[in-house]
């Protein structure tokens, strides 16, 4: 039984087909990377898998349960969480509050109790806050816990999104370019964090342009080009795959190839 199974997924916008027949499985504890040139459909794939766009064809299964077409919040309750390429941090809330929002599913959601702040709500706020501080420590953001997220540097925001996603206690974590815009030191930190998460048994799906990072930490790599799967395998297999090289060289030239 795979944690996440994607079968024959397809989607289009207007007349443009964005994804065609994409399939893969991700297992517990695995780091599974999805790469491809710009416009290959990686983020679209994430958006379909996390329920933001309904697929035109194909199915998505979590732990063998068919979850195709479920809204994102229901997927989250089945153990799927994600980060965003173009940061979707709650900018007006503090870093700690951002992570506390991630605890939402694990909190009691009785609105009447909230209206009158019953003692149980206070207790729960304490527990949530403690958990949030723990997660901030995990991504090394303890010292900015009470700063407004909007004022944090870019690298910190990337890690904050990861901590927030972890707060949901996911079984599957989709990371959309977690190292984008980060300097080498920050990238190194993120690399560590990802490996630590995978070690706890979370299935990680990673979209990343930093090929060094991808090749270093991924167990398997899935290559998309223009919405089609062109290869899948280990770093070594993908690196030598002719279609992959053609796809990258054909469109982006030497730079990307050299990095790989």
């Amino acid at each position, binding site marked *: 039984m795979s944690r996440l199974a994607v079968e024959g997924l397809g989607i289009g*916008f207007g007349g443009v087909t964005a994804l065609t027949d994409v399939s893969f499985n991700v297992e517990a504890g695995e780091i599974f990377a999805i790469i491809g040139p710009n416009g290959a459909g990686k*983020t679209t794939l994430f*958006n379909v898998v996390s329920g*933001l*766009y309904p697929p035109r064809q194909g199915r998505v299964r979590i732990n063998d349960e068919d979850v195709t077409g479920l809204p994102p919040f229901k997927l989250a309750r089945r153990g799927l969480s994600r980060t*965003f*390429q*173009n940061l*979707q941090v709650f900018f007006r809330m503090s870093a700690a509050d951002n992570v506390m929002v991630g605890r939402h599913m694990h909190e009691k959601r009785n609105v009447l109790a909230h209206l009158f702040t019953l003692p149980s709500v206070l207790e729960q706020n304490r527990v949530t806050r403690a958990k949030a501080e723990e997660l901030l420590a995990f991504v090394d953001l303890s010292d900015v816990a009470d700063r407004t997220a909007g004022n944090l540097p870019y690298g910190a925001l990337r890690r904050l999104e990861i901590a927030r996603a972890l707060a949901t206690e996911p079984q599957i974590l989709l990371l959309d370019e977690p190292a984008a815009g980060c300097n080498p030191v920050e990238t190194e930190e993120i690399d560590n964090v990802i490996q630590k998460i995978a070690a706890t048994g979370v299935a990680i799906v990673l979209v990343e342009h930093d090929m060094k990072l991808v090749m270093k930490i991924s167990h398997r790599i899935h290559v998309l080009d223009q919405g089609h799967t062109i290869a899948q395998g280990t770093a070594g297999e993908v690196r030598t795959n002719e279609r992959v090289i053609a796809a990258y060289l054909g469109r982006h030239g030497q730079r990307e190839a050299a990095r790989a």
Partner: protein
Amino acid sequence: MPEFLQFAFSGLTVGAIYALVALGFTLIYNASGVINFAQGEFVMLGGMVTVFAHAAGLPLPLAALTALVTAVVIGLALYRFAIEPARGASAVSLIIITIGASILLRGATSIVFDKNFHSLPPYAGSAPWIVGGAALLPQSLIVLGGAAAIVVALWYFLTRTLTGKALLATAANRLAARLVGINTNAVVGLSFAVSAAIGALGGILMTPITFTSYDSGTLLALKGFAAAMLGGMGNPLGAVVGGLVVGLLEAFSAGYISSSYKDAVAFLVILGVLFLMPQGLFGRGGVERV
């Protein structure tokens, strides 16, 4: 059948006026993202200034021109002194500014002129023509024709002139427009000027039929906004269609259902359309980029 035609004439005339107000909303929204609730005041100014300039002895065309220029100047002033200094404020804050501006303009008009209703002589006689058993006013045709001319002129301006294209480019992507060397501030200012002009022209055209007074802009702004949203905010074609649809809905529900609830029918239809098409009739649908 004569009834049907009569309702249609009525709805189209009123709808053409709504369409012009909605166009004004759309233009400013496109260029700046601001919902300008003072749009109705431009229409009011068009009517009031023409009336008083005419009464002061100016020939009608000159009085209308005076009104047009006044509205444009006030539109530019609104942008320069109220909208531009608040750049970066949230959409709601900007709405409050335009509401403040509309209160201010109403107050000023009531002092500079008066609080009475005024009319203008019809531009082409007041005897109606009988078409298919229904009465059609020459002035209604002037309103419809005028509105059509404004729409065509606007279309030409936006797609055939460099300035117009700059306005469209700014609407599509302000940052990109600035990067290719468009003075986006000037363009947004221009959108206020053009919207004010369209509003004022609407006021000049409609006053012989509907009269005007210092506070006749409020209701027009409300209907024009609804029409713009029905058509899909930011789409000039949508604004025109939205305006005509609202006008026709009001006329037909007044005629066939109940005059007490004609506005209710119009709004119910708008709500219904929005539930089915959350971006309005011609709004850009598409998916949210994340």
